[in-house]
């Protein structure tokens, strides 16, 4: 790059970087540090007890388990949706494409009550499942449904651009070498998509673990059964147990930071594999 010299033509470096760092510190870094300071003041035993009480452990199992399954469902159907949107033309396609972003735009509380209305036992979908003995609303299954809803666009929107950029010639070469359509997908297209698909999966998973608004209405929030981890923080705050809330928050934050590192790595891998800029 020609810009590696120390001479700067453009103005405003000190001002813009100073403002960026100041604002970042005030809004994000200092308040986040408060959580770790608070946790540090608890002492290890107190922290450990608060972070691993039976009810909290049950919430980890539900939050992480349901988030993993939801991200898996999203990886399958998100890939399918992205494929259909890129490769085929069908009526209403533009509308479908635009509406994939609905979970980004729709307030989570609205999504939460709408999903509850649909999956409650007198709801449009719930009433169909009721005779089959399947209860969704107010069970862990309801948590899963909400997490699938909010995670879907992450997979579609990470896979879609890679699919669009794919040249037809690789598949043509595969076919000319005798591969059938499935083999061409399995051995030519899928390996190219895989880093992006994994990134989408990780993004959906990360979002699902921290999600609150869309889940609490449909979950029923039964202790030890359908309480998610963010709800444990709220519950403890309502009891003025700031130490207990902080302990759970620290566990969630450490997990988020680890996932953020993994996602950054995955995105670098995607960029390398497909030659796309990050």
């Amino acid at each position, binding site marked *: 790059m020609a810009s590696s010299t120390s001479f700067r033509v453009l103005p405003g470096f000190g001002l*813009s970087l100073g403002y960026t760092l100041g604002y970042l510190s005030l809004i994000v870094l200092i308040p*986040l540090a*408060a959580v770790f300071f608070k946790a540090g003041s608890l002492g290890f035993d107190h922290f450990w007890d608060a972070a691993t009480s039976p009810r909290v452990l049950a919430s980890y199992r539900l939050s992480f388990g349901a988030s993993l399954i939801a991200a898996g469902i999203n990886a399958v159907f998100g890939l399918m949706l992205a494929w259909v949107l890129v490769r085929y033309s069908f009526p209403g396609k533009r509308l479908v494409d635009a509406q994939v972003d609905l979970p980004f*735009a729709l307030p989570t*509380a*609205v999504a939460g*009550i709408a999903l509850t209305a649909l999956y409650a036992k007198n709801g449009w979908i719930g009433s169909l499942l009721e005779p089959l003995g399947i209860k969704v609303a107010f069970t862990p299954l309801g948590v899963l449904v909400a997490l699938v809803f909010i995670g879907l666009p992450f997979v579609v929107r990470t896979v879609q651009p890679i699919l669009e950029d794919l040249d037809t010639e690789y598949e043509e070469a595969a076919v000319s070498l005798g591969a059938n359509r499935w083999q061409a997908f399995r051995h030519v297209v899928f390996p190219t998509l895989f880093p992006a698909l994994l990134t989408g999966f990780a993004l959906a998973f990360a979002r699902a673990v921290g999600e*609150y608004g869309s889940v609490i209405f449909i979950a029923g929030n039964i202790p030890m059964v359908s309480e998610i981890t963010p709800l444990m923080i709220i519950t403890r705050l309502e009891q003025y147990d700031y130490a207990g809330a902080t302990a759970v928050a620290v566990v969630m934050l450490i997990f*988020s930071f680890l996932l953020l590192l993994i996602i950054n790595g995955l995105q670098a891998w995607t960029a390398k594999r497909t030659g796309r*800029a990050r």
Partner: protein
Amino acid sequence: MAGAAAVLHGTADHAARFESKAATREPGLVKWGLIALALSFFAFFLLLPLIAVFVEAFRKGWETYFNALVDPDAVSAIKLTLLAAAISVPLNLVFGVAAAWSITKFDFRGKHFLITLIDLPFSVSPVVSGLIYVLVFGAQGWFGPWLSDNDVKVIFAVPGIVLATVFVTFPFVARELIPLMEAQGKEEEEAAVVLGARGWQVFWHVTLPNVKWGLMYGVILCNARAMGEFGAVSVVSGHIRGYTNTMPLHVEILYNEYQFAAAFAVASVLALLAIVTLVIKVWVERQAGKAATVSEDE
């Protein structure tokens, strides 16, 4: 962009390219089977919830719907939501521009680390985002005693709601602008400076026209999140009716009081906002696509 919403990209239709060649085309049965499966999933998870909001909102008729919206508590919730967005969006817009300018126009150490830090609010659970402000400004927090001595309320008051909203919408504009301004390079700006333009002139006449669509895209996503945020705001609000309730919190209260029609009526206004956001988003993508085609032709 961990946890971020989609980055602006063009809207070209690629289907024709793939469907015109035998090697990249599936048999009709496979194609329509996949479309049917993908669209059913879409209908169950994305279409039906949106329809349900409006059906439930009008279940008890227009009058109930209308009354739910002109109720004084609803009106004050709408005002507070607009206020929170009116403060947080401009703040994060200015930050986004400053961050993108420093990161994309200059070289310095730790740039990638800085980008990761800007991303942080996207990977933090909304509930934790609220909690951190309780720990700083709450009664037992760092500034709690000082604030109560000076009779300033942040938590369970409007400033806390604004702060939490600023936090959760923090990265939106920066995240749209950084990749865009990175791709544009800095030759045009450097040429303007050499020709005698001053700092702000460079920005207004050279940089801004190049990134205006991305900027707008970031702003509408930021605004949608600011108006719709629930978890973070819920922690700092204290749910005081007519005072610290935003629209999403008002929806929750009505719903928990079994006033379902009223809850969905307020929710339908938020759903309408989401639909408007998606429409503007598609429009911006189309404009950006056109701008890109024009500059390629030149």
